[in-house]
Each structure stands twice: as structure tokens, then as C-alpha cells.
């Protein structure tokens, strides 16, 4: 019985890992397998003639480096803004009762109900007027608008999960509201906030429509790849695809301890 359960358990884990890892592996294989490896059929499972040639070629193409930098800038600004605006909004939703609270919650979600395609033209015009057009910051603003509802609602539930009495205890023992937040609430909410931040980063990193519409020369990586990949050779596309996935993976890997940390179970 126990053996059976173990078998099922591990099969499940292996299946889940394969679900995520196999596609990534094949993309990596395409990206590093060299020009010939991409076209070979049947595909070899093991890397045969690995080379960085495709990757190098890709990175040397004009504009790729700049596009990556733009992407990173936009994603970081998105991340910072979503947390800076979303976490306080979430805290307010979690801790204060105010008239129209439920309507406000709904309203936050409704911002996602406007299709970006409809907003694209007026946004472009407005951005050109203010001078935000074709800047990473402008793109980041739109991405923040996309990520913010998520950031606010997730952090609201994060703060809600932290017992109010913990904060009250901090007040009793001499903390101001802000001190109590910084000393008690924030450390407890940090894993969740880190996850929210990563999510905002990934939303921005992967977003292509707004980025394509709002930039011409200062493209983000996704927008750039969209325009160039159609005319590129296959191994070149794999290299681009690989570059698109890597940051998300690295990022999530880097903060995994916050994602998994449970106080007292995982030691810090």
C-alpha cells in the first residue's frame, strides 16, 4: 500500500516536472544544438553538437541587446510600481472597512475588462503628446496597469491572512502603525509579496501587444522578436525563445525560498 502510494506520488512529480521541463529542454536544445541539429529528424534527445553559435549570432544582431535592456527596465519598473501601489491598496482593503469596499474590489478587477486593443489608439496619441511614446517607462506604465489589479487583490488576501491581533500586539508594546507594519506585517507578508513582484515582472516581460503598439525604436524583447522572428531561420528563433524564458526561470529560482518558506518550518 505504502509502496503504491510512493509510486503514484513520484509518478505525479515526474509527470509535472516533465510537463514544464521537456518543452524548455527542447527549446534549449534548439537554441544550443547548432544549425543542423534544429533541422534533424528524428530529433536526438541528447545534445549532440552543442554550440553557442546560434546564441552568439542572435545576441550580435542589431537591437537585441538594446531590446533586452528595455525589457528588463520595463519589467523592473512594472514590478516596483505594482508593489508600491498594489501592496498599500491591498493593506487598505484588508484592514479598513470603508463604504463602497466591495464595489472598489470589483472596480479593481474591472480595469482588466477593457480590451487593450480598444485603448491602443487613444493611448498612443496620449503618450505621443506627453512624450512617453517609445520609452520603456511608458510601456512599464501600461504593464503596471495590467499587473496592478492582481497585485492589489493578492496582497489584500496576504494581509488578511495575517491575524490583526499580531499588529495590535505590536501597538500595545509601543509601535506606531508604521512600525508595526514594518516589524510585524511586512516580514510575514514578504514571501507573498515576493511572489507577487515576480508575477508582475513576468507579466511585463511576456506582454507583447502594448509593447508593440507603444514603441518603434525602443522595443522590448518580445515586441522586437515579434517583428524580426518571422523572417529568421529556425535556430535563431529558438535562441530568441530561450532568452524569453530564461529570466522568469532564473528569477523564480532566486526567490524560491520566499515562495516555499513557511515560518518555523524552513529555517531562514
Amino acid at each position, binding site marked *: 500500500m505504502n509502496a503504491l502510494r510512493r509510486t503514484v506520488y513520484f509518478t505525479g512529480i515526474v509527470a509535472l516536472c516533465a510537463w514544464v521541463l521537456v518543452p524548455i529542454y527542447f527549446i534549449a536544445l534548439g537554441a544550443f544544438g547548432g544549425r543542423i541539429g534544429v533541422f534533424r529528424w528524428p530529433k536526438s534527445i541528447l545534445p549532440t553538437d552543442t554550440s553557442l553559435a546560434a546564441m552568439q549570432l542572435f545576441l550580435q544582431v542589431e537591437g537585441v541587446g538594446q531590446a533586452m535592456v528595455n525589457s528588463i527596465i520595463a519589467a523592473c519598473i512594472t514590478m516596483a510600481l505594482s508593489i508600491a501601489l498594489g501592496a498599500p491598496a491591498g493593506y487598505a482593503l484588508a484592514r479598513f472597512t470603508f463604504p463602497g469596499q466591495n464595489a472598489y474590489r470589483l472596480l479593481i478587477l474591472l480595469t482588466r475588462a477593457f480590451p487593450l486593443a480598444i485603448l491602443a489608439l487613444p493611448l498612443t496619441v496620449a503618450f505621443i503628446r506627453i512624450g512617453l511614446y517609445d520609452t520603456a517607462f511608458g510601456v512599464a506604465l501600461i504593464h503596471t496597469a495590467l499587473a496592478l489589479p492582481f497585485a492589489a487583490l493578492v496582497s489584500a488576501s496576504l494581509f488578511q491572512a495575517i491575524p490583526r*491581533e499580531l499588529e*495590535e500586539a*505590536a501597538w500595545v*508594546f509601543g*509601535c*506606531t502603525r508604521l512600525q508595526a507594519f514594518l516589524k*510585524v506585517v511586512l516580514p510575514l507578508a514578504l514571501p507573498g509579496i515576493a511572489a507577487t513582484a515576480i508575477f508582475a515582472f513576468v507579466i511585463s516581460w511576456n506582454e507583447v501587444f502594448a509593447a508593440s503598439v507603444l514603441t518603434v525604436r525602443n522595443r522590448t524583447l518580445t515586441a522586437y522578436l515579434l517583428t524580426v522572428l518571422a523572417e529568421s531561420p529556425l535556430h535563431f528563433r529558438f535562441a530568441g525563445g530561450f532568452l524569453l524564458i530564461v529570466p522568469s526561470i532564473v528569477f523564480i529560482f532566486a526567490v524560491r525560498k520566499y515562495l516555499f518558506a513557511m*515560518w*518555523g518550518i524552513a529555517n531562514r
Partner: protein
Amino acid sequence: MADIKIDKIAKTFGNARALDEITLDIADGEFIALLGPSGCGKTTLLRIIAGLETRSAGRVIIGGRDISDTPTRARGLAMVFQNYAVFPHMTVYENVAFGLRMQKADEARIKAQVARAAELLHIEPYLERYPAKLSGGQRQRVAVARALAVEPPVLLMDEPLSNLDALLRLEMRAELKAVLREAGTTTIYVTHDQTEAMGLADRIAVMHGGRIVQIDKPTAVYSRPKTTFVGGFVGSPPMNFLPVTAASGAIDLDGLSLAAPRPEGNLLAGIRAEDFALSHSGEGLAFDVMVAEPLGSHTLLTGRSHGQMLRVVAPPNGDYPADTRLGLKPDPNRIVWMDAASGEALRQETAA
């Protein structure tokens, strides 16, 4: 000086009235137990004193200073929460040290105070642990230690020993009382354990439905309850209430004549289980034993008298088979006379 004056504090949640004009004066260094059934507003009152809950009306004055609108941190009090509220991301040591750190105490003082509080509550072995690795009772003791460590002038405790085993609770109770008396801490101690309240408090405030129905010394609350509620809630077993009728200034209990506090009318005679003298010859109030519980120090008899359930304390070694008929003679000086309609005690001329 940290005397507390609670002046007509009221609290409504929506339409529900949780506190109904509570007025309470607590002297500096006094230990008050708030005793009452679940939901009577004990926690709400503590939270209003601490400034964690808004009040609907009234004032709280500590040490002559009206602190009704002072933020919690500046009220100069410490609190033990009903659900402990121990910080899960800090070690036990850091939890206990938290209040002192906020007061910017120097490291040596912190160390000494934490050690003292930890020793008192027997939590020294866990100082380096995180609360997630403690049992409920251990966490509760951390919460008490955290409050004691700051040596507050006013200490509010919300059922601080509820999760401990009987032996430990007895021990902690005694130590807590000694420490708080020595430090001269003004304490409000919420409990619904009436033996705890009796053992610890200088005065007991019995709450019921958002009001304080009686506040008095433990012995007075026990033997001179002001209402049938207090008599039934305080003391184990609860007080017996025997319905009687006075006629021309006397009450007749199966041939036993008692002087009535009122010439005519229906009354309740409140009599503690230990205030009966037993007579095997059947003299006095007829009482049929239903159950006898030998409790070591005494035997508790439950039975009926004219259809009315009574509890009576008998000597420990007697044998009381079911359906034994006994005669009961209540001690007339210890009877609390209550109005049958209102359930409130009549004014007594005899002192408690």
C-alpha cells in the same frame, strides 16, 4: 499611579449592544477579575481600555489622565491576548524582548528582564525556538512573559492561563499573583473560570450581557450574590434557589420556621450547598437523594425537595444511597433572599 477609571463606556456593534454603560473604578495596584459567560463583552471592554476598539460612548482615565483618544502605544499598558498573538517570525526570546526593545532598553536590561519572565513562566528551554514549534500552552506562556517583561503599570490579561493543564495553571496562578503584587501592577484579568477569579482577585467584577452586575470581594460575591445570575454563575456547585412563600413574616419549610425578610409574597431563598445541616432523622426540609458524588474532601448530593432540584454538601465518609430521605436545615444567617419576580437580592441587614 495607575488607577483606572472606566466612565460609562458603551459599545454597540451595528445594532447589537456589546457593552452597556460600564462604570468601574480600579485602585492603583489592584487586581480585578472580570468574570462572565462567553460573549458578555469581557474582551470588548479590555480592547476599549487598550485602545484597540473604538468606543461608542464614555471615557477611560488611567492615572488621572483621560486616555480615551490616546493611541494604544502611549497608554502605558501591556496586554495578553485571548489568542496569544505571539509573533511567528521571531524567536521566543525576541518575542519576550519586543516591548523592551521598543522602549529602547539597553541590552543588559533586556537580557535580565527576559530571563526573569522566562523563568517565571518556565519557558527557558524554548527561548531560541520559533513559536510554530511550541504547543498552545507554551505559546500562551510566551504571551504572558512578553507582557510581564515590560513591567507595565497596567496589565490587561484576556484568559491568560486558559490553555494550561490544571497543575501548571494552579502554579502559574500563584506565581502571577505574587509577582504582580510585588510590582504593584494594576491588573484586569479576564476569565470565565470562577475558581481562578476567586483565587487571584482583590475584587471580582461579574459581567452579564454587557453590564457589570456585581463588583465585590471574592467572598462577598460568593456568599452574597446580588442576583440569581451571579449566584448561579459563581461557585461550583451553583447556588441553590428555593422558591418559598412568606406569610405574616415567616416562612415555613416542612415544619421549620424561618424569619422572612418581607411579611408577604413570593421569594427565592439562595442557599449555598455547604450551608445546609443534614439530619438523618428527617427533621427540616425533606430532601430525596438522587445522586451522591464522593469528591474526596466532601460528598456532593444532588436530589429533589418538593420537585425542586437541590445540591447539598455532605461529609465525605457518609453513605447516601439513592432515594434516601434526609432533612435539611439551612443556616438562616447565610441565606440570600431574592425577589422571586426580579431575581434580585433584597437588601440585607446582615453583613457579609
